[in-house]
């Protein structure tokens, strides 16, 4: 059984006919071609598929697409501004890039989206608050050191 749903993804409306059992993650990746959101476990453990649903960070693998009908979905692809002068990175993207916070890069989109949700709520977080905010996002490459530094840097705080 399929249902027609409407998603506002990175500000753009999309109408998609989806099987009722399909997750939002699979719809983003397979139907809309937005493969920046990663599937690391598909059971809500790793945070690689973190997106913003009406501004709240969620694991897209734990949301059925039909549940997201009518919502605003923000993914990593919508973060940078593309204009006449080219691509302008979001401060988090800029700091992740410059401070070496992306190694293999597989956790990076989810990590940046989780950090974005944190900074929207708490523009000046402590290091502890940063570590807590990304506790649901697993990285296996970095030891989190440079990720935490990058988030603090983007929040205009002094780096450790």
């Amino acid at each position: 059984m399929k249902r027609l749903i409407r998603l506002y993804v990175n500000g753009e409306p999309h109408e998609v006919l989806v099987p009722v059992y399909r997750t939002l993650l699979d719809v983003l990746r397979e139907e809309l071609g937005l493969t920046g959101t990663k599937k690391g476990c598909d059971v809500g453990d790793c945070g690689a598929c973190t997106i913003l649903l009406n501004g709240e960070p969620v694991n897209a693998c734990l949301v059925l697409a039909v549940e997201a009908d009518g919502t605003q979905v923000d993914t990593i692809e919508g973060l940078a501004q593309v204009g006449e002068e080219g691509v302008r990175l979001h401060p988090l993207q800029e700091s992740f890039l410059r401070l070496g916070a992306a190694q293999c890069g597989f956790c990076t989109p989810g990590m940046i989206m989780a950090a974005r949700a944190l900074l929207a709520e708490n523009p000046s977080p402590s290091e502890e608050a940063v570590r807590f905010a990304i506790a649901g996002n697993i990285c296996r490459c970095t030891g989190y050191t440079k990720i935490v530094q990058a988030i603090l840097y983007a929040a205009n705080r002094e780096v450790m």
Partner: protein
Amino acid sequence: MSRGFSTIGVGHPRIDAIEKVTGKARYAADFSLPGMLYGKIKRSPHAHARVLSIDAEKALALEGVKAVLTPWDVPRVLHTGAPAPRLGSLRADQLVLTDVARFVGDGVAAVAATTEEIAEAALDLIEVQYEILPAVFTVEEARRPGAPLIHGTEGNLVMPPIIVQAGDVEAGFAEADLVLEATYHTGRPSHCYMEPNACLCYFDESGTLTIWASTQCAFMVRGILSEVLGLPLHKVRVVVKHMGGGFGAKQDLYQHEFVCALLARRTGRPVKMVYSRKEVFMATKTRHPVSITLKQGVKRDGTITARQALYVSNTGGYASHGPGITAVGTIDMTSLYRCNENWRLEGRSVYTNAPIAGAFRGYGAVQSFFALDVQMDELAEMVGMNPLDFRLKNAVGEGDPSPSGHRLRADALAACLRRGAEEVRWHERWQPPEVKTGRVRWGLGIGTEMHSSGAYPDIKEQSNAILKMNEDGTVQLLTGAADLGTGAHTVLAQIAAEELGMPLANIRVVSGDTDMVPFDIGAYASRTTYVAGSAVQRAAAELRQRLLALAGEKLGCEATTLEIRDGEIRRQGQVLLSVAELVRGEGGRPAVALMAQATYEAKVAYSFAAHFAEVEVDTETGMVRVTKVVAVHEIGKAINPLGVEGQIEGGIQQGIGHSLTEDLVLDPETGAPLNAGFVDYKMPLAPDMPEIRVIILEEAPDPDSPFGAKGVGEDPIMAIGPAIANAVYNATGVRFRELPITPDKLLARLREQGETDTA
């Protein structure tokens, strides 16, 4: 002659970071093709069972199912899982789909369907009749007389034991004042790279297979697929774009790579296969659980007189890298600390029906150095020496033998120990465990390691590079070396830019397509900077010579009087013309094609490290918290310090996990993994990580490497384990000869020692 570097030695953001932070980086599972099918593997629920029959009728009747493959539908070519051409230690013991399951999760059938959900549903409809065979999961069970023979080899040994000996061990022990013999055990950690194994296959009209894969060794994937599928090499194209980690496990081929190609051939359509996280845990690789019985003699003055060891690895259902890690783990016990060159070391690798163990960062030496460095602490105490001084007395240095057979060139290990000791104020802060009291106790411990840059002489190391000059002064660098997330491509571009005298921005790395780039054996053993980097440096030097010759011709002067800096041809500091002006075409003629190619056959260089771990042990809960790690690494020259720090910080994270929480636990009855998911497996998360102070030493640059650089990828995971175990001892007086050190074990040991209220 001596001039400042322009591109190397300073931290550079990765050249591919822009793709990663914008979500544009494409990993194997991100590729799709029109008409694509989805493949899935039917896995055995039994650890050891013969497949009697497979009935696929119901599965094939399901709408959307396009093909089912059984062991009898696929080429029955025994192949190795571990593709590197190692000296004599490979065992071809795997089939594409097996009719004898040898671990829980061994693939016995496969299906392709129009959606992933249909493919999954079809798996349940494939009916497999098994004859269940007796299974063994531990080395002890597998070695017992009458144990089931997993591959028909005597005593379930993967290969004849590896014997490494020198000097006279008996005389050495006779000379000793004290002798200690103990057995050390390591656990079964999983790699847990974030990107699950995935591939996409299709055959074009000419019968050429293209496979988008996530592999550290694209050319080895090409070689083994060619062998098993019966295709010539020019009709197999392996493409690797971005990789989401590998840590050694993606040096092997898995069943999906073969099955996916065969399903694509059978259906005439592209097929994609992506492992679930559970499949990654159960059916890819783990580190080898190893037991090491280590005996050393020591004189009262702290001189170690002899070393004897038996290293036994549990390789699980298939050999994979069992022979390789066992050889490395055994021979590496000749290193790190001197023992008057008296040693007798034996290595065995044993088949069991446990999940397959394979290559994993640190490759066999993680286990050896754990045993060695914990025993160093024990010996220090026996002879009444401070653990730091005892290590400094015995640390290998210039002129000492190394596992490769070469003599070491510097006292780099001692330098790491001294620098770390200074940083943690060892002599001020270290106190013996007897004085520690209270509920939460602080401890400080040391671990050390050394690692070769590359796997020479076990592997005849070789890499290639091609540099192509464009007519506007930019350069394409073609390399077969994979970047599994390490930043290797950035380092290679930096080396090319430095050697050419060009800005980094003028270099573009082309990689990951076996149709385009020259052969590379793969990314492993901390070899890429050293081996692939040397090939790049040589190709760049060749191209620079050709540019200078061309400039000499054009300017009417001797090429030897010219140099290239910042993309400009200069003589005695004066800019004469830019490289772009030099190479562009003239008079309507296209530019002369300028290319350079180089091959590098590496020997060996060693990197060293000493880690100092500080822990707090809660004696009521048994929890160990690592509060700070000082990691001193001697790596010759850091081409990209930002990348080096990232490697070290990440390796320490994995090592903390392996030391304290991570272990893939098997059901003792069935052999099925009990914690095949991130929640139950438990890796360190952001709040669990301590402060890490990375100190890079460049004391012993290698004369044969690019700008003196040596490897760093493997190193950080090796020293942290013993550092933590020794710190736990320092805090509590409880000596752990096993990993991981979990709260239940620590509490039990504290109780034995009468250290808790409940005692």
